[in-house]
């Protein structure tokens, strides 16, 4: 496959196209690690994986941990249904990701990075290895980067094996260590004891790609975009029933309506924001904005046009979760199976009040009791569809 084929999907102008990784690296190499940390912190950069945790804070935690060595891991297990922005970054600007990792390494005090690539992106591996070689040749990786004594960093690529759960950072770490991808207990956190039990920063591909941009253009340039609470811009993967699907860059706080108009989906019946584990938004809420606190997202927007059966959508998502749960904790493993069966039944027979109550309670249990984000989020899509589209069920009036 032509690795550049994805280029055709870019919908508007991307910041990444204008920034040189080398410039970012040059600035970082001339700065003290504390200053790098301060700049990333000041920019307000938040993680792009979906949880939106401030990147600077994560790095600071890792930096203050006593253990050595420390590791920087790029989470390229882009498995959320409907996201493909990381694939674009990895194809077009891998050096930005590598630079982001190296800069993170400088800030945190790590000399080794791993890019965890999802199995389905295996065809990108050669391309990425070539890009790594090019970076090494250009002294952007290796020993004494850009001539700065003591700035050492190198990266290796490791492959996932096709499990959605391995995009969850602790399951990713288990997978990296050669075990089945089971979510770990959240205490200790990966920044305390991550890969091989050492302090580890796991960042999304896009988060890392923004880092050299921030160094080149300055934290205030970044903070000026978006909202006060969530500065910066974001790449969105837009797919589904729209005229111009693709990858779009928007600042935080952009309204859903704006995006739908840009992609040619004004008549959308519903929009799934945040992939399978996200929320299904009805037209009445299209003025909501894409920002943590309102519609948080991992960058995926799936448009459903008129005529889509929303409970078929719910069933599809639920099927995905029943299959992709790591199988460890009961609320997620069994809860998703029972939820799926219930959706299949209600599509056939409708939904009585008592069952609805049971299912809403189950959704709450899965949300509060599951071990990791997968189980905690997996009933969200169904519940938002139930809240907004219950009239589509048999026996209910439209």
């Amino acid at each position, binding site marked *: 496959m032509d690795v550049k084929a994805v280029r055709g999907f870019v919908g508007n102008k991307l910041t990444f196209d204008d920034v040189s990784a080398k410039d970012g690296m040059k600035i970082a190499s001339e700065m003290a690690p504390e200053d790098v940390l301060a700049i990333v912190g000041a920019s307000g950069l938040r993680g792009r994986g979906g949880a939106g945790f401030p990147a600077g804070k994560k790095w600071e935690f890792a930096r203050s941990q006593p253990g050595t060595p420390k590791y920087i891991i790029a989470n390229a297990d882009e498995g959320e249904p409907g996201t493909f922005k990381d694939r674009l970054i990895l194809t077009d600007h891998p050096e930005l990701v590598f630079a982001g990792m190296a800069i993170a390494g400088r800030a945190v005090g790590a000399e080794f990075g791993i890019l965890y690539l999802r199995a389905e992106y295996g065809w990108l591996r050669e391309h990425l290895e070539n890009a790594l070689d090019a970076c090494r040749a250009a002294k952007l990786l290796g020993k004494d980067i850009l001539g700065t004594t003591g700035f050492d960093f190198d990266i290796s690529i490791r492959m996932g094996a096709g499990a959605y759960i391995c995009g969850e950072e602790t399951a990713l770490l288990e997978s990296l*260590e050669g075990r089945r991808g089971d979510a770990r*207990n959240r205490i200790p956190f990966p920044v305390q004891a991550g890969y091989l039990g050492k302090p580890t920063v796991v960042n999304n591909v896009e988060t890392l790609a923004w880092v050299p941009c921030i160094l080149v253009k300055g934290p205030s340039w970044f903070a000026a975009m978006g909202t006060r609470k969530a500065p910066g811009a974001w790449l969105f993967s837009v797919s589904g029933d729209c005229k111009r699907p693709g990858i779009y860059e928007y600042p935080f706080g952009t309204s859903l309506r704006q995006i739908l108009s840009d992609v040619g989906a004004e008549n959308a019946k519903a929009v799934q924001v945040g992939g399978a584990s996200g929320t299904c938004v009805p037209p009445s809420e299209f003025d909501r904005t894409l920002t943590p606190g309102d519609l948080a997202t991992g960058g995926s927007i799936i448009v459903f046009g008129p005529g889509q059966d929303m409970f078929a959508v719910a069933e599809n998502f639920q099927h995905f979760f*029943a299959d992709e749960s*790591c199988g460890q904790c*009961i609320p997620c*493993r069994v809860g998703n199976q029972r939820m799926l069966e219930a959706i299949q039944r209600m599509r056939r027979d409708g939904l009585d009040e008592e069952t609805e109550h049971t299912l809403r309670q189950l959704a709450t249990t899965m949300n*509060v*009791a599951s071990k990791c984000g997968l189980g*905690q989020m997996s009933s969200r899509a169904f519940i938002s569809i139930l809240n907004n589209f219950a009239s589509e069920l048999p026996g209910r009036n439209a």
Partner: protein
Amino acid sequence: MTSELITVTIDGKELQVSPGTTVLEAARKLGIHVPTLCHHDDLCAEALYSQTTSKMHEDTSDPRKHAESGMLSTPSSCRLCLVEVEGLAKLHASCALPIHNPMTVRTTSTAIRHARHDILELMMSEHYGDCFACPRNGTCELQGLCRDYGVTSNSFGRPEKPLFDYADPENIIQRDMNKSILCRRCVRMCALYQGVYALTTEGRGDHSRISTFMGREMKDAWCINCGQCINRCPTGALSERDDTEAVWRAIEDPDKIVVIQTAPAPRAAIGECFDCEPGTPLTFQMNTALRRCGFDKVFDTNFSADLTIMEEGSELLSRLYKAVVLKDNSAALPQFTSCSPGWIKFIETFYPQYLPNLSSAKSPQQMMGAVVKTYFAEKNGWDPSKIVSVSLMPCTAKKFEAGRPEMDASGYRDIDYVLTTRELSRMFKQTGLDLPKLEKSEFDDPFGTPTGSGVIFGATGGVMEAALRTVIEIVTGEKVETLFDKADIMPVRGFDGVRMAEVTIKKVGPVPAILSHLVPDFDWLKGVTLKVGLAHGTANAIRVMQDIAEGGPLSTCHFIEFMACPGGCLGGGGQPIPTDKEIRAARAKAIYSEDEHYQVRKSHENEDVLRIYKEFFKEGPCSHKSHELLHTHYKERA
């Protein structure tokens, strides 16, 4: 502890804990019961540490350590121990929540109660099986919680048919995935305590299950049949092959003479199946009960334990003689004990290069079987083909040992059926016996003199202690009490995972007649320091084997005792459920106090043993006839 204590408030009660204590542990210290199905006290960090480390083996560079690390922490998979923490959203599994800062916790609330109820309903929604017919009916932790939380299965129903195929009924370790809740206690037990890794989690999402390598049946997996998984299973997903029906049929067959031998460890534990405190010895009540069940003779495995010591101890002396005096390299040292069948399958599977080190002596169970169908049958004029030899063992691996094809040197199977403590307690209940209330009665002759040395076989270190009592007296010609007060050889006792002890032989006596065919004199032992080692739980056996391979301190030992199960036989896989450190300690206490009260506490003083050498084996231990009946051989298992 140098670190500062932290204050945690749970349900309004305050407690000072050291950093890293989990909320679950803190709650328990406060007497607050938090339900859990995936946590087990034997699998918490503290218990794991005390079981698997010892002073000799603190090597942290061990690569296995890291391989284990993922399993060391609780999977927190059942999510029943959820609590609310002030200032934190959602609910948190208290078993996986270490206390590092002061926190305020609630263990009950509407949200928690609803979540627990839902979780139990979810477990039952994939739980297929009949509670009444389940071997764990009454001791099932899931059943107990469903009762407590009023689970009706109304929310999500129950499966109408089995979701998983049933395993081969020939498996000694029976697995029924229809009852598994995937808590992984079995997986972690097998890996962390036993080092066997026979069980694993397979598949993802709705395909998750506990499996073996390549999904093999347990009998074909690299399982050592120790049954430790069964003892940790919260439900009936794991159990042993039920042989009670076959034993009943033999008892009810008028043509058969059914004899039973009882091992020491079940006596200290069977009371737990009858609501007694752990460590209530019911040895003699059990004899009465066995006769009431219809067994024709009740023998004491202590007899053959003493026989084992005579054979194994003599073997050790002749190996030492060969090595020290004759400089014969064929005498492999250290000699390893051979009475734990889980350990035997373990070494045959994982360390076959050390098979020459294993004592060729059969285990007490098999020795008793062999002499019952020969010596005893001859003496009483019984037709050995009509004797059905049953044994009561704390052990599931004994079922495998009894079935080993080579165990029939007399022309008849040494042992026909093995019952675990749990199986026998069911037979007693079927007979309507309230065991603790029965009158006491003695064992049957000629294998009925109970001895202390036989009894302590039930605890880790017991075989070694019994062997030392005999070897020291035979070699020095002096009472062992001159070296160890009351003949209690304290250095070999205890629950440390790997232990070592040594005794210097200061003087030697004449060779007793019974051993004169093996060694001419003991002069070569004068001034020798006899070094012994002990390990229990096969994960510790791995540590010993690694140490030996590296030429560490254990490689200098002369004799090493290995017990497959943590705690030795008293912690065996056939013992009553539940088990934990305190329960095992109570059983050990009962065993050692029984030893103290016996008149005969040394194997070579057991008159039944001396008689059988005189009347039957004639040429003494390790002679031609004893080799034929009391010794065996081993095979490498791929």
